[in-house]
């Protein structure tokens, strides 16, 4: 058996108005070559201009990943020739990344692991290429889009851990609002470094890099295939070659692209066209203050302080706006468990059924609070509340109006219920005997009351009265 060692390099495009070093629009389009500028095409004489929003976003994620930030922002050039790189170099950061020595806490199977972050740097995306038999097409829409690259230490040990980390990282990015992080649009991509070592070995084995995997499922498949492949090679006495491989998602295998021995020397040097930008404490503090409470912290808060199950907590924090909605609902003391139940059952069901987002529905946290309060005050039953909630969501009217319209209210009047109970008991004398013998007919009596009151009798009160009246006889 071998110990698996995995390090990830995750690229994520930032959602800024303009590109990283030009004034062209940063957006996705099916129409090629519409979002571009002289800079993104690498014409002679162009100069890069740093995008403040991109710098802020990169620093924000670096902070959220508990990284140390630099004293100034500088960029470097990474030099290589490829048709998707119009300038002949990529502007990136090698000397002073936006963040170093960070970590992210990740929960894997109910256990917390700490994933160390080597660095986070800001760079630019390349153009995209479409290859055909006789020719290739270049689309420069993507050229120059701001990209952050997050590099982990080789500290992950299974595909499960790798995926858990990617999910957690994605959530940090989404919570911070710097990217939509959609893998299907290539906004989040991943390189996997993977090696095997003997359980008792002290040095890492030879690593293989699998380039540019664009979905988490494929990352999982690639890792699992590669573990299998490397295990076989090692078991049969072979050695692993240091190389770059690609993952083919049709046969789920990895294939060698190039050996690392003839690796390119990128000849990094300081980008001379962008003078260093000093980072003041005020500037950094302002960015830090914009980082919301993140998923991991919220899960722990919900479990430890609000008494939710991990399952419910995890469901609520999946999306920041859902978590915010939940927190808004309970901010004035509404019971967290009740709120969580309503949200994770009916509200979430509605969202799934109609494929809408939490911020698109009519039901506001305040309405949910008023509904829960009506139940707590005994004004309506929870069964009624359920009905009201559905109507609120579907008819887009507030709960009070729905309650009025349906004419539903709870019968709280002791006399009214009592006289009804007496009548029912009188009509069902044999059943009282059965009840006394221990047969469970209690619910039948409650049911009868509900039937007569069209469900409007307060169930707790009803049960109490039935008990009293039986005992009287």
């Amino acid at each position: 058996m071998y110990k698996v060692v995995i390090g990830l390099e995750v690229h994520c495009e930032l959602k800024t108005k303009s590109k990283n070093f030009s004034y062209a629009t940063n957006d996705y389009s099916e129409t090629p070559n519409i979002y571009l500028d002289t800079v993104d095409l690498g014409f002679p004489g162009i100069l890069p201009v740093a995008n403040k929003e991109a710098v802020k976003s990169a620093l924000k994620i670096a902070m959220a990943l508990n990284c140390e930030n630099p004293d100034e922002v500088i960029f470097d050039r990474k030099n290589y020739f490829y048709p998707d790189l119009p300038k002949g170099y990529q502007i990136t950061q090698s000397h002073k990344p936006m963040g170093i020595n960070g970590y992210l806490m990740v929960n894997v199977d109910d256990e917390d692991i700490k994933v160390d972050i080597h660095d986070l740097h800001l760079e630019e995306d390349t153009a995209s290429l479409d290859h055909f038999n006789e020719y290739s097409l270049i689309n420069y829409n993507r050229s120059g889009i701001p990209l952050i690259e997050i590099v982990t230490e080789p500290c992950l040990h299974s595909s499960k851990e790798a995926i858990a980390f990617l999910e957690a990282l994605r959530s940090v990015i989404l919570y911070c609002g710097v990217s939509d992080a959609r893998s299907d649009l290539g906004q989040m991509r991943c390189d996997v470094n993977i090696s095997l070592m003997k359980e008792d070995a002290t040095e890492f084995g030879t690593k293989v890099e699998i380039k540019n995997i664009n979905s988490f499922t494929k990352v999982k498949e690639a890792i699992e295939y590669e573990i299998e492949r490397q295990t076989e090679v090692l078991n049969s006495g072979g050695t692993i070659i240091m190389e770059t491989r690609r993952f083919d998602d049709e046969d789920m295998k990895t294939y060698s692209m190039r050996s690392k021995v003839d690796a390119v020397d990128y000849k990094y040097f300081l980008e001379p066209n962008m003078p260093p930008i000093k980072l003041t404490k005020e500037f950094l503090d302002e960015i830090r203050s914009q980082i919301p409470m993140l998923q991991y912290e919220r899960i722990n808060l919900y479990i430890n302080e609000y008494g939710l199950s991990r399952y419910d907590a995890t469901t609520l924090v999946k999306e920041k706006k859902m978590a915010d909605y939940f927190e808004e609902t309970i901010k004035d003391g509404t019971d967290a468990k009740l709120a969580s139940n309503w949200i994770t059952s009916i509200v979430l069901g509605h969202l799934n059924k109609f494929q809408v987002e939490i911020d698109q529905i009519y039901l506001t946290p305040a309405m949910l609070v008023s509904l829960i309060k009506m139940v707590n005050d005994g004004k309506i039953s929870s069964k009624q509340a359920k009905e009201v909630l559905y109507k609120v969501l579907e008819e887009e009217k507030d709960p009070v109006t729905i309650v009025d319209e349906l004419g539903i209210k709870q019968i709280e009047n002791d006399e009214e219920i009592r006289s009804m109970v007496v009548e029912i008991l009188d009509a069902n004398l044999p059943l009282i005997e059965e009840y006394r013998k221990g047969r469970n007919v209690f619910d039948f009596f409650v049911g009868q009351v509900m039937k007569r009151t069209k469900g409007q009798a307060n169930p707790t009160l009803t049960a109490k009265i039935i008990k009293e009246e039986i005992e009287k006889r």
Partner: protein
Amino acid sequence: MKYLDLTIDEIRNLLDRKEVTSDELIKESIDKAHQYQEEYNSFVTILDEAKHNYEGSTIINGIPYALKDNYSTKGILTTASSNILSNYVPVYDATVVQKLNKSGAVLMGKTVLDELAMGDSGTTGHTGIVKNPWDKKRIIGGSSAGSAASVALGIVPFALGSDTGDSVRKPAAYGGVVGFKPTYGRISRYGLFAFASSLDHVGYFTRSVKDAAYLTDILKGKDERDMTSLPDNDEVYVSGLENDIKGRKLFYIKEVCNIDSYQDQTDEELKALLNNFHEVIEKCRQLGFIVEEVSIDRDLLNALYPSYMCISCAEATSNNANLTGILFGLPGKGNNVDEIMFDARTRGFSEFIKRRFIMGSFVLQKENQDKLFLNASRVRRMIVDKINELFKEYDGLIMPSSEGVAPIINSKKDKLSDRYLILGNHLVIGNFGGFPSISLPSGFVNGLPVSVNLTGRQFEDGLTLNMAYKIESVLGYKGQVAKGVK
């Protein structure tokens, strides 16, 4: 009719007095350009259709000018005098071109340079050698060769060049005209084809210091497209020219300016050059300047040229990596993209350029970078620190602009001789430190123009121009054009 050998403000007067029209000036300029083209080869492109259509009142309104062919001009061929860009028509105007157009100046032609601005001779452009208007057997110097020649020939009263090592100030010296590059960042580089970004400056050739000041006032300013451009200031350079300079202190470097420092002290040309320089110093003193001799560590001076080569070649190899023939420029042939790029670059660059790229690539390689590229950057810092320290006491550095008169075409020089190594390369100090630096005609040696150079403190373009203006007034070569040109 002959107006274009005048200075900008003289031409302005004539235009304002309606003694000449802008259309007549443009015609004269284009006619002269054609007339001298075969002999001197100043232009890559002469814009026969150039027109004036601007209503406004700026000093340069209606006046034709020439532009080095490494400034991006929308819809106008821009070759950087390289085969790889021999068909390149840009889609945008450089910031300086926009500013000149907005001021009503009329672009009449794009001038020849050393290929990609890498060179000091004006002989390596893809359309041939640019010759010196004072003597056709000689070079005008580079890399802004055609711009220097067009001003010296009286084709235009001013022309833009670019200065990475001395590429405006040296050809200005060989051509007997004024060459100025302001502080790094004073003028936006957006649209200037990058050679070495940390050293590249916009510069210009004029026939007077005042004209250089006018242009600086028009061209300066913050550009959202150039992060290294300096914030706008309210200084109007042309209005500070008359300021009193009495008591201003200048220094020159002993190791460069005294004949005793040279191994060969019998060279007549060198002696005459240095004599001319010391005569200028004397005149400066008479003007009220205090001029002192300062000694600088010879090792540091010897390191100027090699450091410059390391830094400029390194940046150049990266800056020119966009020239692949994929999106623009000479289309390459081949079965895959690598072959296509390889072919375009093989055919597109001369051997001379390839040599510089290889040097640049070599000094940036992982195993060499610290020893070569980064050490060169450290030397650069040491030199700049030294000069800045001297600038605490002195207002300017005054030096001969060149190691001699314009050399004969294709003559060999010993690049390691002290004369070439230091006297021929000290102007790079102005690029290392981003200092404002101006070359002024100061007389003749063997019938050919020689020049002095004045370099001032970073950001003090106003004072530098002010001091140069005063010095110019006692030298007597203002408004000079090449003698003997028909």
